[in-house]
């Protein structure tokens, strides 16, 4: 601060709080878009190729988690729990909400392996298991907030986050919930963030 402003401010000046200095502008979040989510080409368990942002994310309401078929830990429980979410979503799935389960082991989880896995759990259209280039999948994992801040833990695939990313891409509204919550509680968390149409 320079002396002049010191004098100008005056000691007794009851300084104004932060009052609005102009009418509030409409919120204009910088678009995350493909720069952030990337257009990595992924393959679904049905063998379809898709650009991650342009084909799977843009303008959509999504639920995203990470799993791998060879998981001996929590993945099957997570998938089973999400099957219950699939049922609770009813006909919103594939129309109003899309579910993506991205593999943590793209080298092993080929589309065929993922298809068999999806078949085993009775996955319906609107929910896709995704695989792709390992380096690009890893970037998605970090960008979507599934990395552990501790590099040692992050390298341990069995410590991976059993979380569900919930979001509305068009509103840039994002939150996360534990994928193993009771389905009745998890669907509430989903509906708080992406309410059913007309509610």
């Amino acid at each position, binding site marked *: *601060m320079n002396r002049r402003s010191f004098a100008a401010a005056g000691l007794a000046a009851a300084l*104004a709080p*932060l009052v*609005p200095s102009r009418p*509030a502008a409409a919120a204009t*979040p910088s678009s995350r878009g493909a720069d952030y989510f990337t257009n990595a080409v992924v393959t679904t368990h049905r063998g379809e190729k898709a650009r991650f942002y342009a084909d799977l994310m843009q303008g959509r309401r999504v639920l995203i988690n990470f799993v791998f078929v060879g998981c001996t830990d*929590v993945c099957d429980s997570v998938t089973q729990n999400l099957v219950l979410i699939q049922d609770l979503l009813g006909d919103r799935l594939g129309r109003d909400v899309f579910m993506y389960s991205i593999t943590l082991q793209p080298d092993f989880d080929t589309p065929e392996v993922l298809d068999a896995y999806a078949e085993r759990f009775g996955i319906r259209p609107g929910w896709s298991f995704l695989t792709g280039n390992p380096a690009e999948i890893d970037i998605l994992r970090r960008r979507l907030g*599934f990395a552990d801040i501790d590099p040692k833990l992050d390298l341990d695939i069995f410590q*991976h986050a059993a979380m569900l990313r919930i979001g509305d891409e068009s509103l840039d509204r994002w*939150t996360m919930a534990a994928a193993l919550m009771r389905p009745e509680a998890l669907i509430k968390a989903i509906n708080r963030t992406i309410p059913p149409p007309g509610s």
Partner: protein
Amino acid sequence: MPDWQDKLAEISQRNRQEIVHAKLSKREMLRLGLLTSSGTLALKLGLSARALAQSSGSGAPASPPTRPWVAPLPIIPIKQTVKNNNPYEMKEGPPDGTTPINGATRRINHQFCTATTDDHGGYTYGGRFAPVKFYETFMKPSSAKFHPDYSPTNFWGFDGIYPGPCYMAYYGEPILIRFHNNLPSKKSYKGFGIPEITTHLHNGHTPSESDGNPVNYINSSSDPNEINPKGFKDQHYPNVYAGFTSRGDNRGDPTEALSSLWYHDHHLDFTAQNVVKGMVGPYLLFDDRDTGDENTGLRLPSGEFDVPLMFGDFIFDKNCQMVYDLFNSDGILGDKFCVNGAIQPYFNVRNRRYRFRLYNHGPARWYEYALYDGKNYLPFWQISNDGNLLPKALQRTSVRLAVAERADIIIDFSKINTNRLYLVNRLEQTDGRGPNGNILSPGTPLMQINIDKSRTVPDPSFDFSKGTQVLRELPDPDFAKLMQRAAKAKTRTFRFDRTNGAWAVNGKLFDEDQVAARIDQESEEVWIIQNSSGGWRHPVHMHFEEHRILSRNGVATSASSPEYARKDVVPLNWNEEVKIFMRFRDMKGRYVTHCHNVMHEDSGMMFRWDIV
């Protein structure tokens, strides 16, 4: 996506050394603002790489530069009642004794105040703590300059200001506040923050339906529903000391008095976003000791010499808009330090004693405040912990605050032989894990203080250097007796840890319908709060009543410690087990305990408990 951002994302949230190890080129580092033009590494205080990656659209990863000490400290305005304190002046009509809960899907009566209609259709307010003052506040989008070098930043504020207005409340004067949600429609609002609100009065002995429970958020007036067509919620604050039930009066136990409270949004899953969005403010409580008049009672500095200071750290993009990393649940740190909404302001003070009320509103940073004159750290008097007055003032040269903690300090500027000093933060913290243990010298400067030594000014306030006085007796002044009570109390254990990337308590994520503890009203309990991690710290906050910290890792709280006090936040450090003594008096209903690194709270580190 340019290569450097991927590299940086890969070394997300590490310190300078690790940035060096990441082998970013000089050009990349310059571009990121990690390297200054002279070739030295700039200290990016915990700037999240993921936040950097996110801001790629703007091309400005670090906040735009600001000159320190050019913005005056904003003084938070005092909240006034509705016109003539007349509830009929309230927008949408007078309170009807009900309030919406459960995401505005139900409406219930207030527990401790009633509104009855008379023959003319008017309301009469009654109940055990009938409100005598009526306020209303409008939560709305707004914008303001956080620094003269910045263009206006959009935010959401109570009455459109950040921090929100300061309530001056008095024991024995119950009040009712109407919170109008005039935020944008949830259906169309884009960006971080959710335009639904539930305001928690932090530290308040508040009936459950007015506590700002995370599930009691309400819709915006732009999203009317049948239960809440106008988008507002009335909250009733009895402003009564805890313990009125057992005493059988309407006053309670004066040793349970609170002083420096604050209010903030508490929306389930969205607290962090809404707090960063600007929805915080101070709430001060006074009584016949802490009177708000420096000529009476404890004679603590009052009026313009009693200054709430709310600290928050932010990241701004190149357009001076807040950046929030929606994909970070570790804890977001800012690189710009604000006091009352101004980045690194100056404050011109008179040559006398002041009461500074230090509030750390987070969302994830911890502070260790000190007064630095360029050579030394100067002593001051700490008179409270978490806004509860200590038994007596402690002379200190620093005070540490985890997120949501508060401390009131008395500084006697007339005894400082310089006309310029700095309030600094001596804690180093580089990510959401909490401070890393390093103490900085001199520290990060937060505010410049200029003392006008040119004239003497009257100062009737109590001079702590000339004598001691009892500020506030503790409800349990005899620690040995308290330990005996604790030994007989029911014990519960709560482990704060991480399971599969989620923040959990006892391995469980927050579930609004699962009650972790059912507690009898008027009972006493000992809670054991555990942290088995050597990497994370958690500021654990209990709603409803303060507690006493009995011990940390088995070591009893010393009578000379600032923690020999009533607390509402336990800073839970590495590998710690903290035993606390709690009481659950006067009211029934649901409450929560949670980590006040609000990203952890939103990620599930919270549990519900009910008083039954």
